[in-house]
C-alpha cells in the first residue's frame, strides 16, 4: 500500500474521473454528467486565471502599480498602454445591451487583423510554397534518373510524382464548379472535367479516410494510455498485482 501523498490523491481522483467518464458505456448517467460539468468548469476557471496572470495583470495592471497612474498618459505609453486600456474598456461595454454597439469596434479590430494575418500567412506560407512544390514535381531530377540511381527507385519516384501531380490537379478541378448549362437547364461539366473531378473525389475520399483512421488510431492510443493508468492506480491500491 502506497503512502498517502497529494500526488497519490491526485492519481485516485484522476482515476475516479476516468471511470465516471467511461460509465457512459451503460448510457447517460449522473456520473458522466458530473465529470463533464467538472471538466468544463475547471477548464474555464483555469483559463481565466491564466489569462489574468499572463495577460491582464502584466499588460494593464502592473505598469500602473509600478509607475503610477500618471504613466498612462506619457507619450511613449500611449500606443502600448493607453490604447489597449481604452479598447478593453470599450469592449467591456458589450456587457450592457444599451451600450453594446460601442464594443463592436474592438471586435471589428480583432476580426479584421486576424483575417488579414491568416490570409497573408496562407498566401505566403502555404499557397505559393505548395504551388512551387507541385510544379517542382516534374523537375528534371524527378523525370530523368540520376547517375547511379537504381531503376526501381527512379521508377518509384517517377510514379509517385505523377500520382502527386494527378491528385493535385484532379482535386483542384473537383472544386471548380463552373459548368456549361444545357438546354434542359442542368449544369453539365465537360467530359474531361467530369473524369478528372471524379478522380479528385477519389483522392479526397482517400484523404478523409486516412484522417479518420488517424483519429481512430489516436483514440485507441489514448484509451490504451488511460487503461494503463487505471492499471497502475489499481496496482498501487492493492499493492501490486
Amino acid at each position, binding site marked *: 500500500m502506497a503512502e498517502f501523498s497529494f500526488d497519490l490523491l491526485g492519481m485516485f481522483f484522476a482515476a475516479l474521473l476516468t471511470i465516471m467518464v467511461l460509465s457512459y458505456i*451503460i448510457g447517460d448517467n449522473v456520473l458522466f454528467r458530473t465529470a463533464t460539468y467538472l471538466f468544463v468548469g475547471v477548464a474555464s476557471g483555469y483559463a481565466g486565471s491564466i489569462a489574468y496572470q499572463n495577460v491582464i495583470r502584466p499588460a494593464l495592471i502592473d505598469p500602473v502599480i509600478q509607475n503610477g497612474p500618471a504613466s498612462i498618459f506619457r507619450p511613449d505609453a500611449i500606443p502600448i498602454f493607453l490604447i489597449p486600456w481604452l479598447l478593453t474598456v470599450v469592449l467591456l461595454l458589450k456587457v450592457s445591451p444599451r451600450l453594446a454597439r460601442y464594443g463592436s469596434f474592438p471586435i471589428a479590430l480583432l476580426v479584421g487583423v486576424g483575417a488579414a494575418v491568416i490570409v497573408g*500567412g496562407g498566401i505566403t506560407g502555404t499557397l505559393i510554397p*505548395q504551388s512551387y*512544390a507541385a510544379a*517542382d514535381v516534374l523537375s528534371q531530377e524527378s523525370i530523368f534518373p540520376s547517375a547511379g540511381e537504381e531503376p526501381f527507385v527512379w521508377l518509384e519516384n517517377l510514379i509517385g510524382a505523377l500520382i502527386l501531380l494527378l491528385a493535385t490537379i484532379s482535386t483542384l478541378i473537383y472544386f471548380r464548379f463552373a459548368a456549361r448549362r444545357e438546354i434542359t*437547364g442542368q449544369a453539365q461539366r465537360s467530359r474531361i472535367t467530369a473524369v478528372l473531378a471524379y478522380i479528385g473525389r477519389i483522392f479526397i475520399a482517400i*484523404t478523409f479516410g486516412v484522417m479518420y483512421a488517424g483519429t481512430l488510431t*489516436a483514440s485507441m492510443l489514448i484509451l490504451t494510455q488511460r487503461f*494503463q493508468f487505471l492499471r497502475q492506480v489499481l496496482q498501487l491500491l492493492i499493492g501490486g498485482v
Partner: protein
Amino acid sequence: MAEIRCPMCSAANDETAEVCRECGARLTPLVMDPSGQGMGDEETNEALPGESSAGDDWLERIRSGIGGGEPQGAPEDAPGPPEPDASDAPDWLDELPEASSDDDSGPPSGEIPGWMDEFIAAGEEEAGEGEEVPEWLARIRARQASGETPQEAPTDEGWLDRLREEEGVAEEAEEGPVSEGLEGLAPSPEYEEEPKTDPFSTPVDLGPLSDLPGVPGSPDRALRRSEVLRAQAEVEATDEDLPGDAPQTEGEMPHIPALMERGQQERPVVEIDDVSLDSIELPDWLSELKPEMPPPTPEEAEVQDKGPDLAPATLPSWLEAMRPVDSLRPEIEIEPEEVQAVESAGPLAGLRGVLMAEPVVAMPRTSSVISSQLEITERQYAQAELLHRLVEEEEKDVALPASTGRRLPILRWGISVILLLALFLPGSFERLGFPGFSIPDVVPRETAPLIALIEDIPGDKPSLVVFDFAPGYSGELDTVASPLLKHILDRSVPIVTISTHPSGPPLAERLLREVRPDATLINGAQYLHLGYLSGGPTAVQLFAISPRDAILTGFKLPEGLDRASVWQSPLVKDVEWLSDFGAVIVITAGTETARNWAEQTHPWIGETPLIMVLSAGAEPLVRPYFEAANQQVQGILTGLPSALAYQQLSGQDLTVEARWNGFGSMKFAVESILLAGGIYGAATWFLNRRQQGRGDANG
C-alpha cells in the same frame, strides 16, 4: 380705344399692335388680314400677273355683298373682323343669300381677265366638237332634246341639276353605306369642301405657288369657283320655276349644308333603296362594271349585317381586363399661367402654356397597376411548389414514434466488452504463453532524418517546444513526444516551452517531469516556461517577429526570476528573434495550429528547423509541408509506431513498448469489428437485393 386680345395669352393689346406685349405672339397675319388691310390691292394685283383691274371689280362686288353692302374701300380704320354676335353664326353667313341673289350673273364678259377669256374660249371650242363629247353626255343631251325630262332644261347644265338632286340625296344619306356604283357620282372632294369653306374669303397670296394648278388662289381654281357660282345661280333660277318644289323664300340657300341658313331645318333624310339607285342614269362604263360585281355570299351578308351592330368602343372582357387603365390615364394638371414653363425651343419659343411636345402617355412613370400574375416557367413553378411543400411540412406536427419500450444498448455493450477485453488481455499474455505483438520492423523514412536533425541542434541554443494541444490528447502526444524530448534533454539542450492554449504550460511541466523523473531536471537551467501566448495566429506572428514583445511573463518561473523578467533568464538572454532558437518543435493535435505555426513563422524562422510532433489524425494535412522539395517542416513525428521506431533508432529504452501490446490488441479488436461490420453490411445488402429480386419476379 379698341383693344385686341392675344389669341395665345388673352392679353389686351392695342389694335394697332402687331405682336402681343405679353407673350410676343403675332396679332396680325404676316400676309393679309381678312379686312383687306395690310397688303393693298395694288400688291395683290402685282402678285397676280395678267389680272386686270376690271377683274377686281366683280370680286369687290362679291365682297361688298359679304360685307353687308358696305362700299369697297371702307375706311382704313374700320374694325377688322366683326366681333362675335350673340348668335353663333357669323354675320357674313347670314348675309350670304343676298350676295347670291343680287350679283349672280358673275363677272361681265368684258371684265373677265384675258387669261380667263382664253380659257373659256378653249372650253367652248372643245364643247363645239361633237366627237369630243362623251357618250353619256351626248345621251343626256339627246334625252333632254326629246323632252323626256320632266322639266325643261334651259341650258346644257340640266344634267348638273339632276346631279344636284342626286347629290342632295346622297348627302342626306351620308350615314348609310354608299354603294360602290355610286362612288363615281359622289361629289369630288373639292366640290364637297367648297361650300364648307368660306368661298368669298380673301385669297391668300402664295407668291410663286399661286401659279401652280390646284393650289388655292391659282387661276384655274378661280375659274372653277366662277363656274360653280354661275351654276348655283342657274340652279336657283331653275328651282324657282319648278312647280313641284316647295316655294322658296328669297334668300333661301340651296341644299348645301355648309351654306344652309341658320334656323332652316334640314330636309328629311331620303331612304336609298335599290329602286332609286337603279333609276339613276349611269354612264355606260359604269353600267358595264356593275354586273361584274359578284353578289355577296350569305356569310358576307351576315357579317355585313352584324358589323354595324357592334357597339362602338366596346372591348372584349379579356382585353378590358388587360388594359392598364391607370397607366394610360392622362395626368394633366392645369397649372396657373405664372407657373407654366416657357417653351425654350421651336417656333413657339418664349410662349407659356403651350402643349407639351411629348404626349403624356409616353412619359415614363411608375404604373400604379401591378400585375398579379407572374410569367414563370414550369421549372420555376415546380421549384416554388417544392419550397411550398417543404415549408408546409415544417409546420406539420411530427408524431412521436410509438414507444416500444426501452431497448438495451446491446450492440454498444458488446463492442465495449470486446475493447475492454482487448485492453486487459495483454497483461495476461505472459501467463497465457502468448509472446505478444511484435514490434514493427519497418521504420518510417522520416524518423532517421529527424533523429539526425535533433543531433544537429546546437547545444548552446535553447529549443523552443510549443505545447499546443488540449489535455484530452495528452495520452497520445505524451507518448509520441516523450522520446524526442528525452533525446533533446539527453543532449543537454535547454528547452523553452510556450503554448497558445491556457492549459499548455502545465501540460509541458507534467510531460517534462515524466520524461526526466529524477531531480536532475532543473527549472531555469535546463528548461523554462514562457507560459501562455494569447492571440492565436496574430500572436504567433508577433512572437515570430519579436518574441520579447509577445511574451510578458512566464509560467512557474524558477526562484530569483520576477514575472516581468522572464527574459532575464540565462536560457533566453540571447534570444531576440525566432531564429535564435536552436529548433522549434510544435506538439499539436490540430491541423489549424500546425498550419498557423508553419505559415506565420515561415518568413522569420531562418535556418532554424521546424519540427512537428503530430497526432495521427493531423498528419495527412501537415505532411505536404514536409514532403515538399523546399521544406517548411524539416521533421515530423506522428503515431506510436514512429515513437517506438524513434526510441529504437536513438538507442533509448523502449518505454513505450508497454503500450504496444495494448495498442496492438485494441487495434486488432477494432479491425475485427470493422471487418465484421463490413461483412454484415454486405450480407444484408445482398439479401435485401435478392429478396427484392424475388419480389419483382413475383410481380
